[in-house]
């Protein structure tokens, strides 16, 4: 399946019955698939008149307790930020997919990872966090969509799948239903019709009294602490005796895997730390490897001018040199380019 189709089918299989969106390349296969499939399973697909309208439809459906999703690509996600902040403020679960393309501005339609800051550092206004999941294969896309919905419901917080044009457009075989749905409590907070059998549900993100707003934000931040403890995920590959550790996520991590293979043939030991959750960020994993004596340097590779690199550098905490290599604007780094960078660092670090 194509990455975008896999996202859509995985959402349907995870029980998502509502999709609101507005077209933009390179994620159009998601709404196109949803438009065909949702009516077959008793769901609703609406192409809204804009991204702003789409995210507010998501806000409404989530408030009513529905499993709901929207998807877009970079400029469209920028438009959705106000709604995302409202959804986080009102503590509602939903899944937002960003198939990132080159920016800033209208940018281009080729794959990029330059929306990392926007995804993990807020994007919208106010004290809130998005859980950000970064798959690197189509199978992982499928698994993380199920997981993303479950995390969203468990913590009543929006979750983002951060992909890129490459992951959205490429095709790989996939298997559905590998990740089992979580057992979740009923959504008693949802405004799903009141019959006098429970306290009235109110969906709101407005707090006039500053003390009430501070209390509300502190309550949300308790949740974020729990998310940090329970949901931080990373994959470590070939790190055991690596001289250079590369931190990369999504498509770039796949390219780094090819680099590791080529490097090992030349006797260069390279490891990969691949954050699966970009927020919460697996800083602890990176710190613990950076402490090891055999690791001489940490290199972050991204399809951006260096965004995750800042979080990696914080995690490395001066224990070892933390360096960056990236391509941007829709350019995808080639394995040999990355290898050349590793060789340069190695010569410097091992002298």
């Amino acid at each position: 399946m194509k990455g975008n189709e896999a996202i859509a089918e995985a959402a349907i299989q995870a029980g998502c019955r509502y999709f609101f969106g507005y077209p933009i390349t390179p994620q159009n296969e998601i709404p196109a698939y949803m438009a065909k499939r949702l009516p077959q399973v008793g769901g609703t697909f609406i192409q809204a008149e804009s991204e702003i309208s789409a995210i507010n439809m998501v806000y409404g459906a989530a408030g009513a307790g529905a499993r709901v999703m929207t998807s877009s690509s970079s400029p469209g996600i920028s438009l959705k930020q106000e709604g995302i902040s409202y959804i986080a403020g009102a503590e509602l679960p939903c899944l937002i997919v960003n198939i990132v393309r080159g920016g800033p501005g209208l940018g281009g339609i080729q794959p990029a990872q330059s929306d990392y800051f926007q995804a993990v550092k807020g994007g919208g206004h106010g004290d809130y966090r998005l859980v950000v999941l970064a798959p690197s294969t189509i199978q992982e896309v499928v698994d993380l969509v199920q997981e993303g919905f479950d995390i969203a419901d468990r913590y009543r917080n929006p979750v983002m799948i951060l992909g890129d044009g490459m992951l959205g457009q490429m095709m790989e075989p996939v298997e559905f239903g590998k990740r089992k749905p979580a057992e979740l409590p009923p959504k008693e907070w949802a405004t799903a019709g009141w019959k006098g059998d429970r306290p009235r549900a109110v969906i709101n993100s407005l707090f006039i009294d500053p003390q009430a707003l501070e209390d509300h934000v502190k309550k949300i931040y308790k949740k974020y602490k729990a998310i940090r403890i329970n949901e931080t995920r990373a994959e470590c590959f070939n790190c055991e005796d690596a001289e250079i550790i590369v931190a990369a996520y999504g498509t770039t991590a796949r390219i780094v895997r090819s680099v590791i293979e080529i490097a090992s043939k030349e006797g260069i030991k390279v490891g990969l730390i691949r954050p699966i959750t970009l927020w919460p960020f697996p800083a602890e994993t990176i710190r613990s490897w950076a402490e090891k004596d055999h690791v001489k340097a940490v290199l972050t590779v991204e399809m951006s001018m260096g965004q995750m690199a800042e979080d990696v550098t914080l995690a490395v905490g001066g224990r070892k040199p933390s360096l960056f290599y990236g391509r941007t604007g829709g350019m995808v780094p080639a394995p040999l380019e990355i290898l050349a960078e590793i060789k340069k660092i190695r010569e410097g670090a091992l002298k």
Partner: protein
Amino acid sequence: MILFMLERMLRLVPMDPERLILFTGHFGSGKTEIAINYALKTAESGKKTILVDLDIVNPFFRSTEAKEILEAGGVKVISPNFAATALDIPSLPADIYSVFTDRTSKVIFDVGGDEIGARALGQYFPYFKKEPEPSYRMYYVINTKRPLSASKEDILFMMREVQHKSRLPVTHLINNTNLSYETEICDIIKGQALISQVSKSVEIPIAYITGVKELLYQIAEHEEGLKSILFPIRLYMKPPW
């Protein structure tokens, strides 16, 4: 022996008598890879060959990306304006009309997926009508491992839509059942059974089974009856790792 026979078949593949060859199919069915292989084989046989990239649906993984390989193989490529320039503007160039007036070349059309892609073809309907017999051959490519084309009903539905929008009837089917690098010959054979049902119900023959040669060799060994329709292809659209 089998290898020799397959090699011989490979050479026979593009000998269709029609001048205009169309590859249609559902989204992601493998049309582009097959069209590229078909065009290269046609050019290899010494014919003047043109490949028209008519895909206005998908700005990625398109035949224009293989332009260098195609041109090196003697195939002239006509692309939509802006194709492979990362601009998402689906407009078709005027040179497409030239392939209908100059009848000295064999022309291969790589049509976009689903009924949306076939719509681009509809505007050339009058030219297909004017073409002297045998005028055109319209392949419909099916991968039964793709979503929304895994049942007889789904395949028939999309094929009807494609014919309706392109205003041209499908003349031949292609079984391109695959799961990328996880394909096994039983997938292809199960796909063949399903597409045979489709073929029977619409009375359109299955012209080819396409796939990588390693798998098709295995099929040639096991399924004597299918040997004559195997069309091994090379893959040209690849990610950067």
